[in-house]
């Protein structure tokens, strides 16, 4: 056995709807027109919210904001594949995931206003508060999934992170542990080609992020992240495997961050506008619209009403968010521990926060 091959691996790339809007019916999951409309409606809502958030930021009504423009396909496609009792562990750039799962819009705005109450997740919505330190939420999902397995709950956890996040040690330890325990967890990497100013090519020398799965003995797949149907299918399949006890999956959604990193960033400093323009042509809404047109389910009045509803919902949310009373400084201490310690009570008094 002088030199022989002890392992052979492949990485696959999935696209279901081509850039011309042609659906590959062999690969396509069974989706009713209503279901396809749901993707459309979720993308329009997310995009409407996102646009408004950007204006609110410019007007100084919210703080720094991280745009999701261009990533709605990956977020909506994956979120809509989840069951109600699955759990989600998001980073800070998952607005469309939150909204697709029914997260109250006004809370989302409140969060970006710099108010912790915006992450007080309503009961029944299984989203963990968004994680700002990149990659650190990945082990949480592994742990929650291990807990599901231990309890015998037929559920899965999904965790979102970026191409940058895939370079962190958290990624490694979490995927490896999840593999060992066959935890029902989906690791969803939105490879949007940039980590602030660092391009994907400088994030890792590997050709794909999906191939990392090989190193953990788990499933891995690259997906056209701008093809909402492909993402949906990949996520559905992965969830099914996870719940059947077949362990975790790493899904790499290939997509693009069309806007600046956040409103505090100026991407023109480090990337060419031609690159951005070329990706604009591939953004997920164009693709979905082409498909829906071909299917004849994108009537003008439907389009108008979806947009109008989204705008109305966002309007209401902004009003509601701005109408909320200012946060109470006492809450700085109130939520540190389950109960105030003696020292915290004293501080509360000294600071004049206790009525």
């Amino acid at each position, binding site marked *: 056995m002088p030199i022989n091959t002890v392992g052979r691996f492949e990485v696959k790339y999935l696209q279901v709807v081509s850039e011309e809007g042609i659906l590959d019916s062999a690969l396509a999951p069974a989706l009713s027109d209503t279901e396809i409309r749901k993707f459309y409606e979720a993308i329009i809502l997310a995009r409407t919210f996102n646009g408004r958030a950007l204006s609110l930021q410019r007007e100084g009504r919210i703080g720094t904001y991280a745009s999701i423009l261009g990533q709605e396909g990956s977020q909506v496609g994956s979120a809509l594949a989840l069951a109600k009792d699955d759990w989600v562990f998001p980073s800070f750039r998952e607005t469309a995931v939150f909204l697709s799962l029914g997260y109250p819009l006004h809370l989302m705005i409140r969060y970006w206003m710099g108010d912790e109450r915006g992450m007080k997740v309503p009961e029944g919505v299984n989203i963990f508060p968004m994680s700002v330190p990149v990659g650190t939420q990945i*082990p949480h*999902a592994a742990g929650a999934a291990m*807990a599901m397995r*231990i309890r015998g709950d037929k559920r899965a956890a999904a965790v979102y992170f970026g191409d940058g996040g895939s370079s962190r*040690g958290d990624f490694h*330890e979490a995927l490896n*542990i999840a593999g060992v325990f066959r935890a029902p967890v989906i690791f969803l990497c939105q490879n949007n080609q940039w980590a602030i100013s660092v391009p994907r090519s400088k994030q890792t020398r590997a050709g794909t992020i999906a191939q990392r799965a090989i190193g953990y003995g788990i499933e891995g797949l690259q997906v056209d992240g701008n093809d909402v149907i492909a993402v949906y299918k990949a996520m559905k399949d992965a969830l099914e495997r996870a719940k059947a006890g077949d362990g975790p999956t790493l899904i790499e959604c290939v997509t693009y961050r069309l806007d600046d990193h956040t409103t505090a960033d100026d991407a023109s400093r480090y990337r060419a506008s031609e690159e951005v323009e070329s990706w604009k042509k591939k953004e997920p809404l164009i693709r979905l619209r082409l498909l829906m047109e071909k299917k004849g389910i994108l009537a003008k009045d439907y389009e108008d009403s979806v947009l109008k509803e989204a705008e109305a919902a966002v309007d209401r949310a902004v009003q509601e968010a701005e109408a909320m009373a200012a946060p109470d400084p006492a809450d700085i201490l109130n939520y540190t521990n*389950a109960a105030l310690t003696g020292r915290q009570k004293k501080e509360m008094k000294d600071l004049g926060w206790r009525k």
Partner: protein
Amino acid sequence: MAKTNIVQAINQALTEEMERDKDVVILGEDVGRDGGVFRVTEGLLDKFGPDRVMDTPLAELGILGAAVGMAAYGLKPVVEIQFMGFIYSALEQVFSHAARVRARSRGRFGCQLVVRTPYGIGIKAPELHSESAEALFCHMPGVKVVVPSTPLNAKGLMLSAIRDPDPVIFLEPSRLYRAVKSELSEGGAAMPLGKADIYQEGKDITVVAWGTMLHRAAEASEGFDCEIIDLMTLKPFDEEAILASVKKTGRLVVVHEATRMCGLGAEIAAFAAEEAMMHLKSPVIRVAGPDAVTPMARLEDAYMPDAARIKRAYETVMEY
């Protein structure tokens, strides 16, 4: 009642609590088949099975991060970090997550978990097996920090730590593991966190210590009328107990093994300097490790405060 050491006492607490509450699970390196390198989890794998006693890959950050996720989902993980010197890679999970989940979610999620780890100089093991970095955690809002000193309080405090809704860092003085014995009954009571124990009453000097140093401070107190406070919970610590004692004695000595600068001794001294200044008759003295990292075995005894150094501190404050 049998004489029990700290290893057995913690093992008892874990066993009883796991029997009582099926959400309690254990995870860490070598905690299963091997029973932990100090045998604290011995027998638990056989009793509770691999779903509740999990041998993990060698990945402290992953272990702690997973525990945060388990806690979010409703389990009550008890994590073992094999030695305190190996917790540093997991600090982000403690500082940025475990400690903040409640505040971040405005109470929607908590993080009920315990991190157990052997702590301090004591077993002449290689480098980084002797850390006493309690102050790092004491500086972190949102966590609790506990150090037992006897089998009795080890068991009582562990029961409370597991039941406490906040993340608790439970530091086990490795030097004491088998060195101190107590009579311990099964099903013994939980001891409240946040309460110190007056280990020895006295009227001249208030001595605050915990873990291994408690015993040293007591040993050195012969010939002095020391009131020795076993702090036990380092965060939040029992301010009333210290204050009451200092007001009585007018003198304060804090003894700890950790390096002096920004150690917990600084907090206790500063606390006294703020709240009991007018009662203090003498300087507040800290007997602590010097500004150097814990040395390897050959020099560890030189590093660690010994009875002579502690006595010198008692003498010094008695000069006033």
